[in-house]
């Protein structure tokens, strides 16, 4: 294992120290927690938005704290949901009296810990609601699974719910926007290499020299299928073909696209993938209104990418264009 770290047990706190040092003009660390909040939190007259999850997905989630997006982000240990007390601290830090929306990725751990935090907050009279993001089409949404995972589509939820909250909308309205995004966003991921947990130093799965792992999540879990490494265009086509049917797109529909690197993929390759995504959408007479290419929701040093498609209408497009000062998503 080769990592630029010190004590593996301190990676989260040292990362957060470095993050706050870099962005001290706009964010602050809530004392004795792993919560990063806007410097001016709570923002009066605004619904607070809290997201978070395990660490190792940087720039998620702290990178999305800022005007136009989140009010606070909670970091758990690497790939481990944060605990209820930490989430509760975040809720308290951002509640201005207008209520707080929790953005939760659909994992058993995240859902339980955030729900317990919500219970703690409600017990103190804070109005809390939640949205559960489940955009990963690699997982079947059936009673035989815990449902689809929340992956890179979460970033769109941050952006659009964040923009909505900035308008002074109510908790219910902000939640509605978030739900609308969840309903219209789908993602599929592929890995070319595993990632390595700092604490164990072990590779998350084994992959042959010419193999890829299709349908991976963002925690180094094995995907749904090992396949031979083929050309980028073929891999991209397979991913897009799995995403599009779930969105029931018609001709002249509009979408926003995110091609997200998993951590170690050269940007060159992400753009090569993006080229093919656009080609496939054009073939289907679907218009791409916005494209985001880069690292938005990673798995440490995993190589690979995910493709996210969000079906947009005028409201969502407007919210996408709204300004954002979050370090990892400036518009």
């Amino acid at each position, binding site marked *: 294992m080769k990592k630029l770290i010190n004590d593996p047990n301190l990676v989260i706190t040292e990362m957060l120290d470095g993050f706050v040092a870099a962005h001290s003009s706009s964010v602050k660390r809530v004392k004795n927690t792993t919560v990063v909040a806007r410097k001016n939190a709570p923002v009066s007259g605004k619904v607070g938005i809290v997201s978070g999850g395990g660490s190792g997905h940087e720039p998620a989630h702290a990178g999305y704290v800022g005007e136009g997006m989140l009010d606070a982000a909670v970091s758990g*240990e690497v790939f*481990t*949901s944060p*605990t209820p007390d930490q989430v509760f601290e975040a809720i308290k830090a951002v509640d201005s009296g207008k209520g707080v929306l929790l953005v939760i990725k659909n994992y058993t751990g995240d859902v*339980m810990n955030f729900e317990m935090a919500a219970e703690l907050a409600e017990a103190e009279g804070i109005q809390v609601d939640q949205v559960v993001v489940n955009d990963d089409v690699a997982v079947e949404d059936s009673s035989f699974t815990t449902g689809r995972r929340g992956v890179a589509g979460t970033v769109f939820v941050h952006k659009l719910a964040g923009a909505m909250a900035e308008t002074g909308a109510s908790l219910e309205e902000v939640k509605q926007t978030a739900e609308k995004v969840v309903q219209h966003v789908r993602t599929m991921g592929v890995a070319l290499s595993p990632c390595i947990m700092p604490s164990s130093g072990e590779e998350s799965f084994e992959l042959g020299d010419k193999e890829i792992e299709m349908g991976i999540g963002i925690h180094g879990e094995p995907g749904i299928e090992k396949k031979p490494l083929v050309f980028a265009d073929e891999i991209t086509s397979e991913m897009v073909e799995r995403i599009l049917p779930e969105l029931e797109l018609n001709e002249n529909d509009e979408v926003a696209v995110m091609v997200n690197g998993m951590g170690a993929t050269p940007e060159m390759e992400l753009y090569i993938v993006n080229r093919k995504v656009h080609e496939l959408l054009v073939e289907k007479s679907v218009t791409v209104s916005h494209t985001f290419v880069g690292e938005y929701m990673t798995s440490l040093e995993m190589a690979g990418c995910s493709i996210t498609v969000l079906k947009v209408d005028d409201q969502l497009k407007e919210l996408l264009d709204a300004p954002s000062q979050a370090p990892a998503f400036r518009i």
Partner: protein
Amino acid sequence: MNVNQTAAWITHYNQHLQDQKDYLTSLDRKIGDGDHGINMARGFAEAAKAVEAETFETSADVLKKAAMTVMSKVGGASGPLYGTALLKMSMAAKGKDIKGDVFADMFEAAIDGIKQRGKAETGEKTMLDVWVPVLEEVKSSGFDAANVEETAQKAMEATKDLTATKGRASYLKERSKGHLDPGAVSSYYLFVSLAEALKEEG
């Protein structure tokens, strides 16, 4: 089970978790995200420290302290579940002399709590597949530490053949078969530790 034995339960469990940290993590790497041992070892180290640092009046107090620490130090899926189990056991044990049927009540309360939090049932390849057989054994034959340990072991081993439909392993569907459930294995050690603690003088 007196208050010292209850404390010993937690400290013994922590010892097992430290010893089995890498093993549990490697199990989780196969069908999950490779952090179960790390999470449990981190959280229960804190719980054992908290339990050792204070003197408690009752077993219920020990369990409550452990529950609160686990809840805020483990994280992931196992944190809320073990935290809830410990908290519910504390509540069921409150004001009671812990023996015989009280164990059954405690386990039942824990299972209810786990089910409510995790929305799982038996047969879904989770820790419940150890807890529920243990409860059934205690209900049908009365509480006997050695039997509990044996039942837990068999139940833990039986998770290998199950297909996961809850937790991260469910993403793998049939591919989850053939691997032990990490949470079932860590639950097995909880009952091993209980048997050990009860063998000791209070």
